[in-house]
């Protein structure tokens, strides 16, 4: 064994944290280690890193240079289970600089989980998220922070002159952003740009899962009524490594949008959504029933005629009752939610 048998380290191991500065909030057990807490930085820059061995050193240098004027900041690099030398190089680049912290995830969990891990470990009252592939420019960070301090909860960057391929990246992105704006009601030009600044309490009020990192402004608006604005930021073409996105994400984005619509409008009352669907189904059932009656009364019912219209009517009626039942199950799922704390939702 590693000679680490003290009860404390076993506890910490089991929890998965032994990072003294971490501020895990909830979920599994929490180890609070305040005595050794250092000075809290006011600004945390969170960067998920996945197989970016060429980008990570320039990234650390760029952030350090960009924030040279700032008082206290930290850079939280979240290694999302990289299989290349990213972590090693990041450590070398940090070279004992305690402002650069590395959080290693146990495996590759995807960008959303990595982002959430970064938010959980960030200690600053202002948190900035950024991509790990040098497409965002850390020199924009002070501008985002300045904008945030004007009284916003979330400042999103949008890429003004985007250095990407037109067909595979820009057009799908344009369509997606239109859709997102239309469905979520949050007017953000560029949801795909990771460079954003947040107030701590906004992050504390939301939990990211699945692939929700693409919709942070929408989630923030839906769950905590964040005041959101956006400013143009620089964008560089990818220099190293390969893009981790593909066209296949369109279907996923659509599913996620439906989810957000659900969260936004019906989180507290799923029965309403399902009742609306049920009303549509019942309307169709009535229409088919009417057609069946008309057919029966005015025309000599042929063999098929007598069966198909009433059967279709019954099918739609079934859908209506099924949806109502689903809505009721939804209310069951929300029962505990109704008992949860409301404190987090107020400023």
């Amino acid at each position: 064994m590693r000679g680490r048998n003290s009860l404390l380290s076993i506890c910490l191991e089991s929890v998965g944290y032994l990072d003294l500065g971490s501020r895990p909030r909830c979920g599994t057990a929490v180890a609070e280690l305040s005595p050794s807490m250092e000075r809290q930085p006011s600004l945390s820059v969170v960067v998920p890193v996945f197989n970016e061995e060429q980008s990570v050193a320039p990234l650390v240098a760029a952030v350090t240079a960009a924030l040279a004027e700032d008082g206290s900041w930290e850079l939280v690099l979240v290694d999302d289970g990289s299989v290349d030398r990213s972590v090693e190089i990041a450590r070398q680049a940090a070279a004992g600089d305690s402002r650069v912290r590395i959080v290693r995830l146990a495996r590759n969990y995807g960008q959303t989980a990595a982002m959430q891990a970064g938010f959980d470990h960030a200690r600053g009252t202002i948190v900035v998220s950024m991509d790990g592939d040098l497409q965002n420019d850390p020199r924009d960070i002070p501008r985002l922070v300045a904008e945030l301090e004007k009284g916003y909860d979330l400042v999103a960057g949008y890429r003004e002159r985007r250095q990407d391929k037109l067909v595979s990246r820009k057009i799908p992105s344009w369509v997606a952003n239109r859709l997102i704006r239309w469905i979520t009601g949050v007017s953000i030009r560029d949801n795909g740009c990771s460079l954003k600044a947040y107030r701590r309490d906004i992050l504390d009020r939301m939990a990211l899962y699945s692939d929700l990192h693409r919709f942070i402004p929408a989630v923030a608006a839906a769950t905590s009524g964040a005041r959101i604005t956006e400013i143009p930021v620089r964008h560089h073409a990818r220099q190293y490594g390969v893009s981790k996105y593909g066209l296949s994400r369109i279907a996923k984005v659509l599913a996620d949008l439906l989810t957000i619509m659900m969260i936004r409008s019906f989180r507290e009352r799923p029965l309403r959504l399902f009742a609306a669907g049920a009303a549509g189904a019942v309307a169709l059932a009535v229409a088919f029933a009417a057609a069946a009656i008309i057919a029966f009364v005015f025309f000599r019912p042929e063999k098929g005629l007598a069966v198909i219209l009433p059967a279709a009517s019954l099918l739609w009626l079934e859908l209506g009752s099924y949806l109502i039942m689903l809505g009721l199950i939804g209310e069951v799922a929300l029962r505990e939610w109704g008992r949860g704390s409301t404190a987090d939702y107020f400023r």
Partner: protein
Amino acid sequence: MEQMVVTPEMKPVTREERRVAVSVIVRVTERPEDLEALYHEYAGVLEDAGLSFEFIFAAPPWADSALAPVSLLAERGSDIRIMRAGQPMGEAFLLRAAAAQCQGAIVLSVPAYFRVVPSAVVDLVRQVERGADVAAAIRSPRRDGWVNRVQSRAFHFLLSHLVGSAFSDVACGVYAIRREALASIPLYGEFFRFLPLLAQREGYRVQEVAAAQHSLDRRVRVHGLGVYLRRLIDILGLFFLLRFTDKPLRFFGLVGSVLAVSGGGILFVLLVQRIGGQGIANRPLLLLASLLVVLGVQAIGLGLIGEIIVHVNATTRRTYRVARSEEDSA
């Protein structure tokens, strides 16, 4: 004001409360064999390897006769504890219950029948000591008859194609695991069978260790049809669990939209024909189209309910796990 003072209960330190290196959990289910022989085989090799150990036999209520010989050993003072569930509980539950009671930092979990040669378990424990979170035995060299092998092949073929498992003998069921890792893996129902896969999903380091198959494991096993069906359902469940638990709408939405869009397409064609003056009330296609749309909407609705459940639970759980600290100097 009287203050409540909580004093730690002063228990005499009994022999049972000393820390042991390895807790052997024997899951007594299915087809328990000679448990006394099993105990002696494993205890012997652990003793020879200089590892301190305890045995926990976790058993459902009906296993009393199989447990009788080891109960006798326990009464005579061997390092054996017997946990009898009050009601029929599954293997996952037995394992979790025993894990909650055990003292070793490393848990060695074995079925109540012979699987691999006993000396192999020491290798498993050593692998965990060296840093693996889970060391799972694979029966190799395997000396089974072809009937057993064909079954195992089919099982792992499905596993690797549906779930993307890279493990070669998940069903072996002999593994050593850090106790903390075991406690944090969600184990329920029939999924205990896939523990190496679940551990890997939780971000734990799982290592396969070759272990010669036990001579008593070679008898031909042919199960009833129901058993095979249940395995198939388990794999399907695992497929969903691993890929879609955080995003149920991805799954139900895909199924639902394929159904609804094809149904909607047919309805549209019928509508065009109706406008063109053709009667559609006697077309069975109308029923099929309606049915497809109904099914599709139902699937999407189910997915939305799934999303509500995930969302409600999201604030209290995290989908990631931070790597173990000794590998991390940050």
